[in-house]
C-alpha cells in the first residue's frame, strides 16, 4: 500500500484526523489507541504531514478507533532517518539490520502500550513520576537490552546504537506516531556540544566519535530521557503543571522549586565552586540577564574556578578540567537554560582546554587558560562592542527618530556614543511584559539627557510612522540570517519593514551560530508562567490567580523568537556592516574545523534533512548541499528558507540523493 498517497487528504481536512494532534492547547484525554503493529517498510508515512501539521505528541491524543489508523511506519521511517544521520560516512551498513531492529517483536507491543498509556497519563499528574511505570519499563528494557547489545556489536559507529536504543525503547514504548518526536530529536540535531554535556555521563567512550556530528538536543517531551536527566541532575526541581502541548519538548520547571535543594548544596564546596554557584543563583533570580552579561559573568566565574582548581594526582589536566567545567555547565543549565552566547563561549573554553600542550605544568596551564578567558572577553565582547558602536553611529543622522525594543547593551552604547558625538536625535523605547526590560534602558538614557519616548509593544504600529531607524539587539544570528532575540523583536521588525523603516541588528560575531531555525518553536526557552498571570502593583487585575487549577488553561511565557532575514536591513557586527546573508561566511571563517557537517532538521517537514558540508579550500569556502528531499517543491522551499534564494552563491554544487 502506498501510504504516501493517503495522508494528504487527511492533512487537507485540517488536522481533525484522529491520528494527528489538534493544534493548540489540549489536555490529555483517555487513550483510545489500540495495539499498533509496526508496518512493513514504508519510510514515507511521516511524509504525509503537510508543513502545516504539527507532529503528534508522545502522549496519546483523543483518538477514535484504531482501524482508521494506518498501520503506520514512523518507526521504520525514523529509523531510516536515524540511519541517514548516523551513517553519513557509513553507507556500507545495511538497512535490513536496522529495520528489523527498529521494528520490535509484535508480541511485546500490545501490553507495553497499554501500560504505557497509563504511565503517560500519570505524567500529567503534577510532579512526581509514579513508581509503576519504572517497573514496566524495566521489563521492556530487558528485551531491548539484548537487542541493543547485539546491535552495538554489529555497528561500527558506536554512538548511534545507544542513541537509537534509547530511541527505540521509547519508540516501542510509546505510540508509533510518537516516534516522530524521537525523529524530531534526531532531526533537530544542530546544536553546540554544550547540549551533549547532558549525555556525557551516558556515553563517555563515544566522545571522540561524536566530534563531527553534533549531539541531539535534549528534548523534554521524551519521558524516558527526562527521567534519566533527572537522575543525573545536580539540582532537583519539579516540572511545571499545565504545560503547553506545543512546547513540551522544552524544559519547564516550576519556578523556585530548586531553591531548597540549592541551599542544601551550598555547604558542599567540592560539588560546586562558590562563584559558579553565585552566578547560577543570579541567573535564576533574573539579576543577570542579557547575552553579554550572562556570558561575561559565567566566564569570570569559570576563571575563578580554574584559579582555585587543583588537579588530583592521577588525572590528566585536560580531561579532568573539562569534566569539571561540564559539571558546572550542567548546574548552570538547571538554573537557567544556556543562551547561545554562553554556549559558544563554553565551546571556546573547552577547545582551549583540550588544546593545552600536555607538557605544561598545572600552574602554567591555569595561567594560560585564564589569559585565554580574559582575551576572549576583551576581544570578542568589549572591543567588538566598540567596533559595532563606531560603525553604527555613522548611520545616525541629525533629526533621526530611533526606535529600540527591550534593552540591548550594545544599543545603549550606540545611543550613548552618538550623543557624545553631538548628534541630535530622539529615541523611542518599546517595551513589553512581563519583564519590562525597556524601563531600565529608559532610565539610563534619560539620565544621560537623551530625549525618549516610551511605549508598549501594542502601540508599535502607531509609533512606527515617526520612526526613521530601528536598532535591535540579538541573542544570536543563525546561519540563514534569521535573528534569534527577545520575544517581541520579530513583531517590531515586521512592522518596521512594513513601514519601510530600515532595521539594523547589532550583534557581536561570537554570538553567531551555524544552526538554521525556521520557526520559534523548535528551540526556545520557557519562562515562568506565573510572571504572566501576575500584574505587579495592581492586585485588582489578578484574574488569573488560580490558573494552575484550571485544566483548560495553559500559560505560555516564551523568552525568544526569531526574526526572518527579510525584515533585517543590515547586520552590524565587529566584522563591519553586513547583509544577513553573509553570516555563514563569518561562522565558517571562525571555526577551526575544516570539514563541518551540519544537519538541519525541520520540525514540520519530517523526512527532509539537509546536510550541509563545507569544505575550506585555498580560495575560500565552498558549500555542497545535499538534500534528502522528497519532492522538488519542498527541496526548493528548503533551499529558499535556508539560503534565501535558490541560486545563492554559497552553493557551488548540489547533489540530490536518491530517495530512500
Amino acid at each position: 500500500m502506498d501510504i504516501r498517497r493517503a495522508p494528504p487528504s487527511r492533512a487537507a481536512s485540517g488536522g481533525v484526523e484522529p491520528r494527528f494532534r489538534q493544534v493548540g492547547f489540549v489536555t490529555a484525554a483517555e487513550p483510545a489507541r489500540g495495539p499498533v503493529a509496526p508496518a512493513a517498510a514504508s519510510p514515507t508515512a511521516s511524509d504525509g504531514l503537510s508543513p502545516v501539521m504539527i507532529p503528534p505528541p508522545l502522549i496519546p491524543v483523543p483518538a477514535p478507533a484504531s482501524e482508521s489508523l494506518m498501520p503506520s511506519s514512523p518507526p521504520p521511517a525514523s529509523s531510516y532517518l536515524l540511519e541517514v544521520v548516523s551513517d553519513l560516512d557509513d553507507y556500507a551498513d545495511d538497512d535490513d539490520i536496522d529495520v528489523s531492529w527498529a521494528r520490535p517483536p509484535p508480541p511485546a507491543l500490545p501490553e507495553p502500550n497499554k501500560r504505557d498509556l497509563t504511565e503517560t497519563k500519570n505524567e500529567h499528574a503534577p510532579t512526581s513520576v509514579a513508581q509503576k511505570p519504572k517497573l514496566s519499563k524495566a521489563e521492556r528494557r530487558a528485551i531491548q537490552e539484548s537487542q541493543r547489545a547485539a546491535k552495538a556489536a554489529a555497528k561500527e559507529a558506536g554512538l548511534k546504537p545507544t542513541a537509537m536504543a534509547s530511541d527505540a525503547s521509547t519508540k516501542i514504548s510509546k505510540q508509533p506516531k510518537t516516534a516522530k518526536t524521537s525523529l524530531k530529536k534526531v532531526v533537530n540535531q544542530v546544536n553546540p556540544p554544550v547540549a551533549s554535556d547532558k549525555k556525557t555521563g551516558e556515553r563517555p567512550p563515544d566522545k571522540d566519535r561524536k566530534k563531527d556530528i553534533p549531539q541531539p538536543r535534549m528534548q523534554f517531551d521524551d519521558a524516558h530521557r527526562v527521567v534519566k536527566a533527572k537522575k543525573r541532575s545536580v539540582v532537583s526541581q519539579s516540572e511545571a503543571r499545565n504545560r503547553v502541548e506545543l512546547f513540551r519538548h522544552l524544559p519547564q520547571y516550576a519556578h523556585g522549586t530548586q531553591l531548597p535543594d540549592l541551599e542544601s548544596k551550598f555547604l558542599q564546596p567540592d560539588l560546586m565552586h562558590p562563584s559558579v554557584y553565585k552566578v547560577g543563583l543570579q541567573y535564576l533570580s533574573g539579576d543577570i540577564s542579557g547575552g553579554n552579561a550572562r556570558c561575561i559573568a559565567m566566564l569570570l566565574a569559570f576563571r575563578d574556578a580554574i584559579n582555585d582548581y587543583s588537579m588530583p594526582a592521577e588525572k590528566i589536566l585536560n580531561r579532568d578540567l573539562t569534566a569539571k567545567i561540564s559539571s558546572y555547565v550542567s548546574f548552570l543549565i538547571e538554573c537557567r537554560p544556556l543562551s547561545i552566547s554562553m554556549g559558544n563561549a563554553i565551546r571556546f573554553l573547552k577547545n582551549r582546554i583540550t588544546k593545552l600542550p600536555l607538557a605544561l605544568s598545572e600552574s602554567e596551564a591555569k595561567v594560560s587558560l585564564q589569559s585565554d578567558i580574559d582575551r576572549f572577553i576583551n576581544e570578542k565582547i568589549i572591543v567588538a562592542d566598540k567596533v559595532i558602536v563606531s560603525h553604527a553611529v555613522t548611520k545616525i543622522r541629525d533629526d533621526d527618530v530611533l526606535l529600540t525594543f527591550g534593552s540591548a547593551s550594545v544599543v545603549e552604547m550606540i545611543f550613548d556614543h552618538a550623543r557624545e558625538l553631538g548628534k541630535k536625535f530622539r529615541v523611542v523605547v518599546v517595551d513589553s511584559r512581563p519583564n519590562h526590560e525597556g524601563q531600565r534602558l529608559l532610565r539610563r538614557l534619560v539620565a544621560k539627557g537623551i530625549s525618549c519616548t516610551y511605549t508598549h509593544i501594542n502601540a508599535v504600529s502607531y509609533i512606527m510612522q515617526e520612526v526613521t531607524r530601528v536598532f535591535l539587539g540579538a541573542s544570536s544570528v543563525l546561519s540563514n540570517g534569521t535573528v534569534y532575540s527577545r520575544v517581541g523583536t520579530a513583531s517590531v521588525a515586521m512592522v518596521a519593514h512594513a513601514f519601510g523603516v530600515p532595521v539594523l541588528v547589532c550583534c557581536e560575531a561570537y554570538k553567531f551560530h551555524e544552526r538554521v531555525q525556521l520557526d520559534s518553536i523548535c528551540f526556545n526557552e520557557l519562562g515562568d508562567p506565573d510572571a504572566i498571570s501576575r500584574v505587579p502593583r495592581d492586585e485588582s487585575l489578578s484574574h488569573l490567580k488560580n490558573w494552575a487549577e484550571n485544566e483548560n488553561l495553559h500559560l505560555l511565557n516564551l523568552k525568544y523568537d526569531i526574526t526572518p532575514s527579510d525584515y533585517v536591513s543590515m547586520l552590524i557586527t565587529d566584522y563591519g556592516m553586513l547583509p544577513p546573508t553573509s553570516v555563514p561566511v563569518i561562522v565558517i571563517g571562525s571555526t577551526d574545523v575544516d570539514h563541518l557537517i551540519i544537519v538541519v532538521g525541520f520540525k514540520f517537514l519530517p523526512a527532509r534533512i539537509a546536510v550541509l558540508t563545507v569544505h575550506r579550500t585555498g580560495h575560500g569556502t565552498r558549500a555542497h548541499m545535499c538534500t534528502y528531499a522528497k519532492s522538488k517543491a519542498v527541496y526548493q522551499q528548503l533551499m529558499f528558507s535556508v539560503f534565501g534564494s535558490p541560486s545563492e552563491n554559497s552553493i557551488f554544487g548540489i547533489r540530490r540523493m536518491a530517495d530512500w
Partner: protein
Amino acid sequence: MALAAVIRSSRATTMMELEIELKKASDKLKVDSPDDFTCSAAPSFPVAVSWDATSISLSAACDLFMRFVTRTSHLEHEKFDAAKSRLIERGEKFGEISLKARKTIAMLSQDFIHDGCTILVHGYSRVVLEVLKLAASNRKLFRVLCTEGRPDRTGLRMSNELAALGIPVKVLIDSAVAYSMDEVDMVFVGADGVVESGGIINMMGTYQIALVAHSMNKPVYVAAESYKFARLYPLDQKDMTPAHRPIDFGVPVPTGVEVETSARDYTPPQYLTLLLTDLGVLTPSVVSDELIQLYL
C-alpha cells in the same frame, strides 16, 4: 597606474613610509580635480565616466589597490628594495587586471544575450558598451533601447556608439521606460559602485528602471568590474555622500523653486538579478562575501 608610479618614484626606505605615501596619494586622487594629473595617467586609470570628486568607483579602486598591494605579509621579511619592486609589480598587475576586467565581463555576458532579444540600457557605461560590442561582433541579432539619460545626455552618446557598431538602436526619454518595458527582454546597466549589501550606486534613473523591470519580471543585469566593490552600505537613497550635477532646463529656473540635482541613486539588491563581474557571474549577496574575504 598613477599609484604604481607613486611607488616607483617614492624614496621611502621603510614599508610604513611607503604605505603612508600611497595613502596620501590615493587621498589626493580622490579629492583633487583631474587637471592635477598627467593625461597619461588618467585614461589608464579605471575611473567612472564622470570624473568627479565624489566618484565612488575611484575611491573603491584606490582602497582596493592599497589592500591589494600592501596585503602580503611575507614582505616584512625581505629587504626593502626587493619588497618595493614586488609592490610595483603588484601595482602594475592591478592595473592590468582592471583593464582586462572589461573583456572578461564581456565574455561572460555573451551567454545572456540571445538572438532576437531586446536590451534596455541606461546611460553611458563603457563596460556595457564592451559587452554589446562583443555580442555584435559575434554576429548576434538583437536591438537596444537606450534611455536619453538626462541631464548628461549620456544616452545619446551611447546610442551614437551603438549605431556606429551597426546595432539597431531606439532612444527613449527617461519617462518612457515603463511604457516600453513590455518589449524588453533584459536590462543591462553599469555601476559606479557596488555596495556591500549587493546593491549598486549608479546614474540617476537606474533605481526607477530596476523597479519597473522587477515588477514586470524582467531580469536586470549589472556589469561591473570587481574593483568597484565598495565598503559602503546605504540604508536608503539619502544615505550616501551627495553628488550633484547642475541641470539645464533650457529656461531659467524661477526663483523660489528648488531643483533636485542629485546625480546618483541607490538600487537595493532585491531588484537586481545578477552581477556580471570579472570574478564571475555572481548573485548580489556574494558581494559581501567577497568583500569580507578581501578585507578581513
